[in-house]
C-alpha cells in the first residue's frame, strides 16, 4: 500500500519533469524565445563540464566552495553572537530594556540594504561580505533565541530551583535547553537568509562564487551560465536546509513537536 503511494509520487515527479523538458524544447525550437533562452542540451552539457572546466578562474567546485566558505564564516559568527545577545535579552529584563529598542529600530532594515554601507566600512573584500551574511543571520538568531529564552516555562524553572539548582544552573540546565527548539528554528531561517545574502553580496561585488556566476552570465549575455548557476544555487540551498533540519532532529530529539 505504502509502496504504491510512493510509486505514484515518483510517477508524478517524472511526468512533471518530462512535461517541463518538453515545454522547454518546444519553447527553444518553435518560438522566438530561443534568442534569450538556452536549449536544454547546452545547459546540461555546461552544468556537467563546469565541474572540470573553469568558469572564470575556478571550476564549479571552486565557486561553490567560495560561497559556502563565506556562508560558514558569517553563519558561525552570527550563531554565536545572536544566541548570546538573544538569550541575554530573554533572561534579563535589564538587558532587554537596553538592547531591544535599538534592535527593533534596526530590525526592519533588510540585511541587503546594508551592502553599500558595508562596502564603505569594510572595503570591497571579504570583510564586507562576512558582515552582510552575519547581519542576515544575526537578526533571525537573536530574535528566536530571545523568544525562546523569554518563554521558558516558569514551572520548569520552579521545579529546578526546588531540586536545588542555583541561578547559574537554572540558566545552563533549564533556560538554555528550553530555548533550543526556538534557537534552531532561528538557525534554520538564518541559514536560508545567509545563502541569499551571499548571493547578493557576490552579485554586487566579487570575482568568484555562485552569485558571481549568474551575474557574470547576465553581463555576458550567457543565459546557459545563468541557468546552470541557478540550478547549482537551488541544489546547494536545498542541501543546506536539509542538513540543518537533520542536525536539529539530532540535537532536539526530545522535542515533542518534531
Amino acid at each position, binding site marked *: 500500500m505504502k509502496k504504491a503511494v510512493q510509486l505514484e509520487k515518483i510517477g508524478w515527479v517524472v511526468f512533471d519533469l518530462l512535461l517541463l523538458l518538453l515545454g522547454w524544447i518546444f519553447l527553444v525550437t518553435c518560438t522566438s524565445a530561443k534568442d534569450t533562452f538556452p536549449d536544454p542540451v547546452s545547459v546540461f552539457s555546461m552544468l556537467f563540464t563546469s565541474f572540470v572546466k573553469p568558469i572564470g578562474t575556478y571550476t564549479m567546485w571552486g565557486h561553490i566552495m567560495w560561497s559556502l566558505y563565506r556562508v560558514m564564516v558569517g553563519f558561525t559568527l552570527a550563531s554565536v553572537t545572536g544566541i548570546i545577545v538573544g538569550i541575554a535579552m530573554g533572561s534579563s529584563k535589564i538587558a532587554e530594556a537596553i538592547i531591544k529598542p535599538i534592535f527593533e529600530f534596526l530590525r526592519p532594515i533588510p540585511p541587503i540594504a546594508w551592502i553599500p554601507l558595508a562596502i564603505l566600512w569594510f572595503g570591497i573584500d571579504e570583510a564586507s561580505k562576512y558582515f552582510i551574511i552575519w547581519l542576515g543571520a544575526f537578526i533571525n538568531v537573536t530574535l528566536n533565541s530571545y523568544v525562546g529564552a523569554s518563554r521558558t*516555562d516558569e*514551572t*520548569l524553572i*520552579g*521545579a*529546578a*530551583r*526546588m*531540586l*536545588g*539548582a*542555583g541561578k547559574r*544552573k537554572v540558566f545552563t*540546565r*533549564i533556560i538554555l*535547553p*528550553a530555548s*533550543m527548539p526556538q534557537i534552531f528554528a532561528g538557525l534554520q531561517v538564518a541559514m536560508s537568509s545567509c545563502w541569499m545574502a551571499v548571493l547578493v553580496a557576490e552579485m554586487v561585488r566579487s570575482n568568484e562564487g555562485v552569485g558571481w556566476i549568474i551575474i557574470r552570465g547576465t553581463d555576458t549575455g550567457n543565459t546557459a551560465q545563468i541557468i546552470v548557476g541557478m540550478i547549482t544555487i537551488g541544489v546547494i540551498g536545498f542541501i543546506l536546509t536539509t542538513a540543518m533540519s537533520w542536525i536539529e532532529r539530532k540535537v*532536539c*530529539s*526530545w*522535542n*515533542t513537536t518534531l
Partner: protein
Amino acid sequence: MEHNAVKQILSCRDVSKTFYGDGKCTEVIRHIDFDVTENEFVVLFGPGQCGKTTLIKMLAGLEECEEGSISLENEKITGPRPDLGVVYQTTALFPWCTVRGNIEFGPKVRNKDKKETRKRADHFIDLVGLKGFEDSYPKALSGGMRQRVGIARAYCNDPRVLLMDEPFGHLDAQTRYMMEEALENIWQKEKRTVIFVTNNIEEAIYLADRIILLTNRPASIKQEFKIELPRPRDYVSPEFLKLREIITQAMDATV
C-alpha cells in the same frame, strides 16, 4: 497529646495570602494554621480553584506568605530549598532530559557523588516501576509513567517533606487508581512526610492519615479528619464509604 510521641516537622502558622493585580485584590488564603508530624501523610482536600496550589507554592517557598509564616523544623521557609520536594500536576519533567536525567537532576545540580547518585536513581527507578525506560525521553511516556518519573525525581533528591499538587489530576480514572496504589506502595517502603493536594474524595481517603478540608476561596480550614483505616484500604469497604459520605457532606456545607 499524641504530638508529644512523634516529631513535629512542618508548621503553618496563621497563613494568609491575597493577590493584587488588574486593579483588584483576590483573597485566596485566609488564616490557615496546621502542623504536620514526621512521616505523616496529610491530604489538603477542597473544591477546585480554592487556592490549594497557592498554598503548596507557599509551602515550597516559591510564593511568599503575606501574613503568618511557614517553618520546617522551626526554621522559616523563605525560598525554594531542596529538602522540600514538589510533584506537579503537569509533571514539570524536563523534556530534554531522559528519565534517568530527570531523576538524577537534583543530586547532580547539588554536586552529589556521581556513583552514589546513580545508585539512588536506580533504586527509585526500580521502585516506581520504570525499569527499562531509563533512556526514554518524557515525550515517549504515557501520562501515568511521566508522573512516576515525577515522584521518583522528588524522592531521589531526598527531601524531608514531599509536596504533591494534584499529581494525578490529569490522569484518566483507570490510571489514577493504579497510581494511587503505586504511591501508597512507594510511601510504605520509603516513609516520608507528604502533603498531598487533591479534589478527589476517594483519593483523599485512600491515601491520607489526616484530611484537612478546605473551604472555597478564600481557603481556610473547615474541618480535619483523622483516617485510621488499615492500609492498604479498600475503596468499597463500608467504613470507607461511610467516611466518604461524612466528608462529602461536610464539603457540601462549605460550598
